[in-house]
């Protein structure tokens, strides 16, 4: 049976559908309005202010003068010699950038080294004990960051737990200087950010179908090859997510380097804070903040490039 379409009816149906679509679109905008407002007001807005400030002149007592200047931006990487007025690399800044980058990478690698086996261990427990382990892993999250950092300080300071134990065991005579070194910062950040690595990796291992590993084992792969060819590629998304979650806050870390690194071993976050505080150079602080954002984005783009590069080799 064929249906003879009545042109009038069809036109009407098209019209009704179009109206419905319009209502739909309007409704969607309406529903997303609160979210859009919040994002504009509290994220895009401040960012814009920071961007504008970075092109202004520092005021005498903090704040800014509304005079356009790109000095802040040049000062991020170079500085003018106070004696002969020549431009020189801003060594202090560059070494802080470098330390931030280095410590963040080291932190990410260390959290991966400790976090991945931990995640694997938890994911392979029975459902009940698994929840207990996850609970234990997340406990530090409920504690203030400063408190956790001071706890680390208690461990590594000259009269701290580690040194005392080592001395009691007569392994060392004089305490090891751990506070106020890069080691202290790396150690502290690894401890603080470990759950951020464990959780996403755990999530992807938990999703992993271990029958796939059996299938690989059945098809003549050794245990190591099963790990490399089957587990690793399937868990990689979790590892990438974990690395990003650790790397990004590490690069901008402020509290941990401040407490454990002391005044000398600054990181990016501390440098920015300095400009808005004692330095009274808000435009430079603003320019540094944006530089940090750009650095993070470049690092992320580069990282996702290299880590997804090997994916398509099969087939």
């Amino acid at each position, binding site marked *: 049976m064929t249906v003879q379409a009545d042109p009038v009816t069809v036109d009407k149906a098209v019209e009704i559908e179009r109206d419905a679509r319009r209502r739909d679109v309007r409704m969607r905008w309406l529903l997303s309005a609160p979210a859009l407002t919040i994002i504009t007001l509290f994220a895009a807005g401040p960012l814009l202010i920071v961007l504008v400030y970075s092109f202004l002149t520092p005021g005498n007592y903090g704040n800014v003068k509304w005079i356009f200047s790109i000095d802040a931006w040049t000062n991020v990487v170079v500085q003018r010699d106070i004696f002969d007025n020549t431009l020189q690399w801003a060594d202090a800044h560059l070494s802080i950038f470098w330390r931030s980058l280095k410590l963040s990478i080291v932190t990410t690698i260390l959290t991966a080294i400790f976090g991945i086996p931990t995640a694997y261990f938890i994911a392979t427990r029975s459902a009940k004990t698994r929840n207990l382990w996850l609970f234990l892993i997340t406990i530090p999250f409920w504690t203030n960051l400063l408190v956790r950092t001071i706890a680390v300080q208690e461990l590594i300071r000259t009269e701290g737990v580690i040194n005392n134990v080592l001395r009691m065991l007569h392994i060392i005579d004089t305490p090891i200087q751990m506070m106020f070194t890069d080691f202290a910062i790396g150690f502290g950040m690894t401890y603080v950010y470990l759950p951020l690595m464990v959780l996403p990796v755990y999530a992807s291992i938990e999703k992993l*179908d271990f*029958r*796939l590993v*059996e*299938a*690989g*084992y*059945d*098809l*003549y*792969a*050794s245990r190591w*090859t099963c790990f490399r*060819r*089957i587990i690793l*590629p*399937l868990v990689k998304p979790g590892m990438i997510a974990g690395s990003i979650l650790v790397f990004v806050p590490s690069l901008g870390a402020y509290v941990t380097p401040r407490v454990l690194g002391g005044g000398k071993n600054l990181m990016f976050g501390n440098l920015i804070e300095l400009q808005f505080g004692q330095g009274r150079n808000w435009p430079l602080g603003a320019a540094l903040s944006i530089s940090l954002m750009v650095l993070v984005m470049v690092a992320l783009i580069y990282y996702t490039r290299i880590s997804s590069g090997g*994916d398509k080799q*099969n*087939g």
Partner: protein
Amino acid sequence: MIEIRNITKVFGAGEHAVTALQEINVNIAENEFFTLLGPSGCGKTTLLRLIAGFEHPSTGSMLLAGEDISLLPPNKRPVNTVFQNYALFPHMTVAGNIAFGLEMLGRPKAEVAETVDRMLRLVRMEELKNRQTSEISGGQQQRVALARALAPQPKVLLLDEPLSALDLKLRKEMQIELKRLQSETGITFVFVTHDQEEALTMSDRIAVMNAGRIHQIGSPRQIYDHPENRFVANFIGDSNFLNAKLGNIKDDQAELEFAAGRKVTVPLHRADLSDGEVSVLIRPEHVSIAEPTGNSHELTGVIENIVYFGTDTHYHLKLASGEAFMARLQNNPSEAEKRAAGDKVAVLMDAKAIQILRD
């Protein structure tokens, strides 16, 4: 090809111990389509996993082509598995999956490529070679899983309920496909199913399992026509069980007296029977019904219910002894419907239709 000698498998220990398999003895011949049939939880998967090497026997041993493989890990056994859920590698293409085993065996690249193409042709999946495994249908995944397991040319292919996830039509197609693959490759298939019809139509031999034990091993015909015991009879096909008394055993025949009254001389298929109470199996399609003649040696009953199935009709009777009995008669157009519930009828059968069970 595979010799399974007195294997028992216990999971866990102490009061939580589960005996999954008990005293399993099986010899599977080269190039055989061997089926493990039994209800869920009877130990089929466990036996398959033992052959694959994922589990090790608690006691007993296993030989493959005369060589003891009990302690070899799965990757050292020339045995491949088609998993129930297929377990295809989601991060590889169809071809990548099929190539995996060959690559692990270190075959040269050209040979791998050539074998992959041959396998794709064998399972008729050439066009989907470079698809991701998530982009193909369940039936196609099934074929890829088969091709992947066949590619390294194992001595034995293990299939754990490979068709149970497919719909009826596809399942029928794959049953034929599997038989074709088996005869084309000449590989020994050990096939697991809980579907008796599938087992009957596909297998060279069937092992019927229950609660960790093998109850009977035989060809589909042997299993259906001469089940060893009540479990096997009940599990495969429809069955009537009647109580009877066995006596006068002479050579290969004996006299049987039904509780319902009738006395017959029956041929015996087994030597392990003695005089006394026995259980007897009569298949519903092996009998017919007729007007009772009044002969005292007749098996008579009253029709309680008639169910029409198109191709045939099921008559549910209550025998004089009170036992329930079902007769299945084929319908044909010349015969009009002539019986109704409440009619008294006689059950007619050949003495050969009567099977005496061990328990």
